[in-house]
């Protein structure tokens, strides 16, 4: 095995496969106790899981592809802002996104209120929440950024002369796209589609909060069985099915990737402005779609966080809510003297610290691994799909596995008899490490896609000309990869900040994060609590938006 792969493999071995193995081994032992009713439901759950994941990923790719082109090839006003905007949903907790969609499209959302007053209706005309449409829209909203970034990066590095040559030989723009551009984008497109599919496949919060109890995916069923029914064997069986599905997709993906054409010389190019009137119209309409789809729900939140709605009880459809900053000022006061009061600055600092550590860990482990996987030997080919598994693992099951594995010292003989006080689980570092297991497959996958575009003769030429391995890396790999590295880092950052997956099961109350604070407010009734939850969500959105904006600015500055 290539040594560069070793750290990543060891890491996932300890922090993913070990806990998962322990919980599965414990739970599958009494498998015979499962009843037939579960198996009859299983078919329905599986069918729906596949269906919604396939439909969501198809829509996400169709939606993301034109936007990927827009960001890669065209220069337009507000570009950095809009690019950042598309990444924000990815890190918002589902409760917050559900609240945003509700403020926009819910029964008392802006759209319904406007339509009701315009058309004189007594019932809201748009029924959005609790439908399949809501699930699909939320999945696109969450994941389109994966397509935009992964495919966009590849597109930006694509040699435009190939298309120009085809055009001069008489090909129409459409056939250039189908026969030149699309085949060249295939590695990135495949990687993006797979990641999107896996996220949709293991979807949990979106299904519960936007789809409602009528819809159930495997992950929803796992959480139900493990946490509510306390039926671990059933949860373990479902987790195993989910893992096997993930493994199958990963293998299929690796296979199809290896059949693709040889890498091409990357030619980074400056995006150009739209020239003809048609082009301008197209760009303008794409930007409009982007704004509608992202800015409206995301603006609904900050707007709600500064409006006081309580003032007009009894006449709720009346317009003109009063503006207020009291939800924000209240955040800084521990009104009830609670020991679990979270000052916003502390929550933000903890969130950012976790996210920073996650970025460092996942890039440090992921970069060498991606390099090893870019020129795989036999063992690497076999390991490759396994490295993707954390994306398809049930967060609930993994969280329970952590509990079993790390509640005592990892190496017992080092600290005999100290038991409870020294358990690894008690360390706050467990949170960024858990985040890293989820972020790592991402980082590896997106770097691998970028590395595949570097022809080996670049490195060979540099080495022949006397460059040290470090110089080769700096002059060749880094120059070409900086874009992809920044994207990968941004992904790791958002994965950590949004805290989805196993992390929510490992929260440490002494180090509360922004999402923890949001949940804390939402768990009690009262207008002040709701207002503060939205204010905290707005802070989370702003901080992450700023952080991502900064990362991307850094990238642009470093590139030229």
């Amino acid at each position, binding site marked *: 095995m290539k040594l560069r792969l070793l750290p990543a493999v060891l890491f996932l071995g300890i922090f993913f496969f070990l806990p998962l193995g322990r919980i599965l081994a414990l739970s599958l032992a009494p498998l015979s106790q499962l009843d037939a009713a579960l198996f009859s439901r299983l078919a329905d759950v599986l069918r729906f899981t596949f269906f919604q994941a396939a439909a969501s990923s198809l829509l996400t790719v169709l939606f993301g592809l034109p936007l990927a082109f827009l960001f890669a090839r065209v220069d337009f006003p507000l570009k950095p802002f809009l690019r950042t905007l598309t990444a924000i949903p990815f890190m918002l907790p589902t409760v917050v996104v559900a609240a945003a969609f509700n403020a926009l499209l*819910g029964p008392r959302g802006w759209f319904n209120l406007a339509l009701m007053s315009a058309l004189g209706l007594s019932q809201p005309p748009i029924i959005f929440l609790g439908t399949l449409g809501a699930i699909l829209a939320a999945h696109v909203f969450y994941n389109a950024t994966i397509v935009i970034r992964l495919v966009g990066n590849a597109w930006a590095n694509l040699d435009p002369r190939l298309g120009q040559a085809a055009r001069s030989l008489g090909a129409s723009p459409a056939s250039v796209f189908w026969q030149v551009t699309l085949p060249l984008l295939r590695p990135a497109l495949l990687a993006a589609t797979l990641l999107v599919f896996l996220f949709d496949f293991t979807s949990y919060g979106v299904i519960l909060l936007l789809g409602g*109890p*009528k819809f159930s995916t495997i992950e929803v069923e796992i959480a139900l069985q493990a946490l509510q029914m306390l039926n671990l064997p059933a949860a373990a069986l479902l987790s195993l099915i989910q893992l096997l599905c993930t493994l199958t997709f990963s293998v299929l993906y690796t296979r199809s990737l290896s059949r693709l054409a040889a890498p091409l010389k990357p030619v980074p190019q400056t995006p150009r402005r739209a020239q003809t009137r048609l082009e301008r119209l197209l760009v303008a309409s794409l930007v409009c779609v982007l704004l509608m789809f992202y800015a409206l729900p995301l603006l609904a939140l900050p707007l709600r966080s500064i409006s*006081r709605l309580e003032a007009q009880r009894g006449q709720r459809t009346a317009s003109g809510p009063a503006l207020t900053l009291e939800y924000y000022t209240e955040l800084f006061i521990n009104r009830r003297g609670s020991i*679990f*009061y979270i000052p916003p600055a502390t929550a933000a600092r903890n969130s950012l610290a976790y996210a920073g550590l996650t970025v460092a860990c996942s890039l440090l482990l992921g970069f060498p691994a991606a390099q090893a996987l870019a020129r795989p030997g036999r063992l690497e080919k076999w390991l490759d799909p396994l490295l993707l598994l954390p994306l398809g693992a049930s967060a609930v099951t993994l969280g329970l596995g952590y509990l*079993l594995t790390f509640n005592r010292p990892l190496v017992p003989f*080092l600290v005999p008899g100290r038991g409870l006080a020294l358990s690894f689980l008690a360390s706050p*570092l467990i949170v960024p490490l858990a985040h890293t297991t989820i972020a790592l497959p991402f980082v590896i996958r997106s770097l691998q896609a970028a590395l595949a575009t570097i022809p080996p003769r670049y490195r060979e030429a540099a080495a022949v000309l006397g460059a040290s391995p470090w110089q080769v890396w700096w002059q060749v790999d880094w120059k070409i990869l900086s874009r992809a590295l920044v994207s990968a880092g941004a992904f790791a950052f958002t994965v950590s900040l949004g805290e989805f997956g196993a992390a929510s099961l490992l929260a440490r109350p002494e180090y509360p994060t922004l999402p923890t604070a949001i949940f804390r407010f939402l768990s009690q009734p009262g*207008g002040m609590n709701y207002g503060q939850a939205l204010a905290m969500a707005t802070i989370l959105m702003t901080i992450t938006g700023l952080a991502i904006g900064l990362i991307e600015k850094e990238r642009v500055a470093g590139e030229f």
Partner: protein
Amino acid sequence: MKRLLGTLSLLTLFLAACAASSQVLPSETEAAASPAVRTLTVMTHDSFSASEAVIAAFEQANQVNLVFLKSGDAGAALNKAILSKDAPLADVFYGVDNTFLSRALAAGVFEAYNAPLLADVPIEFKLDPQNRALPVDFGDVCLNYDKAWFDGKKMPGPASLDDLLKPEYRGLLVVENPATSSPGLAFLLATIQKYGDPGYLEYWRALKANDVVVVDGWETAYYTNFSASSGRGPQPLVVSYATSPAAEFIFAPSPLADAPTASMLQGCFRQVEFVGILKGSPNRALAEKFIDFMLSRAFQEDMPLQMFVYPVNPQAALPADFARFARLAPNPASLPVDEISANREKWLAAWTEVVLH
């Protein structure tokens, strides 16, 4: 060779980080305090809260550092306690309720403790005769209604579960899925108590015909669907707690003259929450002191405004705002814990079949 060195150094760094994380952090807290200060870990659910001052007083009096391990909702937290019972994560577990009690007792996670203060606690709360699980607080899950909505329609709020089947209440009620939500389960149990098994399924069929809205959990029901919350949803009736109107009053952004919501005190289910010493705790004496503290007036009087529950200690006085708007149902449903435990999955499966499919 360089590559090998690089890899190895990275690996060493990483392992060192792991080792450091498992050793340095706890000893840091040890070093910060005097050697006499011990740590007591309390595992609990996410809704747990207490006042800084009350907790600090206990810590000072007993030279102890309290660590709270919040472990998800009530079901998830208990499951984690059961799963880790061979190497307990904590000394004390708080927050198992009467719907999960049998499960906790059957799993044998608790050690019995005959706390002296239990003598004052009314017998109806002592559901475990062996005192492995000790009652701490209670409250009723009841329907809440939006007073302004019903006033505006010149319509009375519903007075009983039967009322909810009337055509004038069509589409007005939002409930939580009992399979994923603890108040949802409590409401289902209230209907089972009232209509019996299988009579409750008939009731739910009728409720479904009257367009009951089902959502996954309390947060969605209350903040997205309920019309009196800041979410300003479409339904003026929601399954919540009989203490919620007090929270609405206390957490109002601008001072209110009256609570905007009220509870229907028929068809309620009484939830009792318990605390217990986790089997194998190395700090048994301290754990006992903590439980005594939880049953003492200081903590019991702090609970209502922190967690919006009632104290089991009859000597504990209620805060004025809480006493003014929180309610207790006159005759709440409370099925025997063994019956709940034995039938829970069957009832949930039947309910799912009738209401969701």
